[in-house]
């Protein structure tokens, strides 16, 4: 088994300690809550989407370092992007943690490649995916996402 220390890189530890975009937008246009019933992680996402562009996004909740840093990096990655690009990024991220990511097909992932190591820790894939599944729900207009 790969050493999980390779996954817990500085970027992940740092975003876990100081998550970006942590909070709640009161006048949001989109929102969803995500649950990982297996471990009890919970996440609330609020967004402002105007004319197809994610103007603002914030998250709240509690979870492990993988979950929190994934949410934090996700918000920085999609803020200012079009909804279409965000949906593409969700697919790319899912491919990444399953070990199926291919830059030619899925596009560049920037800093998010730090989550590549999750593919070697099958029990933790759901932690990394939870924020992205929740974002998908929020953009689809369904209020609840679950990893089960």
């Amino acid at each position, binding site marked *: *088994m790969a*050493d*999980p*220390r390779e996954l*817990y890189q500085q970027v992940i530890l740092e975003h876990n*300690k100081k998550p970006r975009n942590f909070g709640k937008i009161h006048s949001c246009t989109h929102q969803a809550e995500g649950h990982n019933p297996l*471990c*009890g992680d919970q996440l609330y996402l609020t967004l402002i989407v105007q004319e197809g562009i994610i103007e603002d996004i914030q998250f709240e909740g*509690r979870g492990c*370092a993988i979950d929190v840093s994934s949410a934090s990096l996700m918000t920085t990655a999609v803020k200012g992007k079009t909804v279409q690009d965000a949906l593409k990024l969700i697919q790319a991220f899912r491919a990444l943690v399953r070990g199926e990511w291919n830059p030619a097909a899925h596009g560049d992932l920037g800093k998010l490649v730090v989550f590549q190591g999750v593919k070697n820790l099958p029990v933790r894939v759901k932690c990394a995916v939870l924020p992205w599944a929740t974002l998908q729900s929020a953009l689809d207009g369904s209020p609840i996402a679950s990893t089960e």
Partner: protein
Amino acid sequence: MTYSVSDIRKDFPLLDRPFHEKPLYYLDSAVSGQMPSSVSERMRQYEMYEHTNVHRGVSTLSQQATDHFEKARDTVARFLKASSSKEIIWTRGTTEAINLVAQTWGRQNIQAGDTICLTEMEHHANIVPWQMLSQSVGAHLAVIPVSDRGELRLDELSKVLSPKTKVLALTHVSNVLGTINPIKKIITEAKKQIPSLMVLVDGAQAVAHLPVDVQDLGADFYTFSGHKLSGPTGIGVLYGRKALLDAMPPWHGGGNMILSVTWDRTTYIEAPGKFEAGTPPIAAAIGLGEAIEYLSKFNPQDVHAHEQHLLRRASEGLKKIPGLRILGESSDKVSVISFVVDGVHPHDLGTLLDHEGIVIRAGHHCAQPLMDRFQVPATTRASIAYYNNESDVDALIQATQKSVEMFHG
């Protein structure tokens, strides 16, 4: 027999296997206790040379299987100090035993407006069956709170109980905090206040650590699971006082539990058969009997002294780690340590410890109301058994220290 952990460990091949190319440190016996080779060999012998069904007519083979199966029941009866083997019912485990009581005794005796009293430290197995029952009959749940040290607030007992309380269902030992509840004292006090009260004790985490005497405790029902007692999975025990079992309706219907069946009406045999419809897990029951025989070789005082020594060593070592807090500080606890570390989620710690070969549990331990009580999402829990040694505990302390440093570094 002198207590030699290095000799005992020879009975457990798993303790000697490599894990992620490292030694394996098994500190998860509260999840499931390891099974000595003699138990798996006994079950293998049954399956290879003795396998058939029990309580099936005149075949000698079936008679012999029945004898072994019933002998295991006698072993359990002696183990719990029950007054008769007729008070021992085989179930799939603690969970099924509690559901059995809720669905039979409960449905017969609990009405709208009645109260079922539980404690804040219960496992979901001793919450959900009662919640399901109370929702369907219109009863209420009342809860004995837990103190910051992780002990039951017995000063609240008389207030939580009321003339409407029909059941007190509580755990003997907390699977999260390790706390040993003073069951005998609680039952005496509660029954003084409400003489007709029925008390069920969840012994899942107690039997591997403490001698149990159900009559001395004054329990009406007592339950445990074989796999937490170095026995196999799929088998557990419900002890019930004979008078209560006789008055209860059956739960599952089918073969083995009947006296006679006609289209008009079925009559049932007495307990325990009345509650054992269908073919039971025979090899597992025989295996559990063998596990109890294996454990009875040890002097309980030696086991206690050994486990408590390791518990102290682990607690003292872990407490030196900055930001680490142990949940459950009762002076009367079994060798189970739950802890949380500031800024480090238990699941991350669990992943890192797993890689070091340390098997522990990170999660809510099927006790979400207790997690809420302590305002933590989850804990990391190490549980120590009679076959653990100082290297297991030292490996835990070192790996925890190293992982926490990585997070805070």
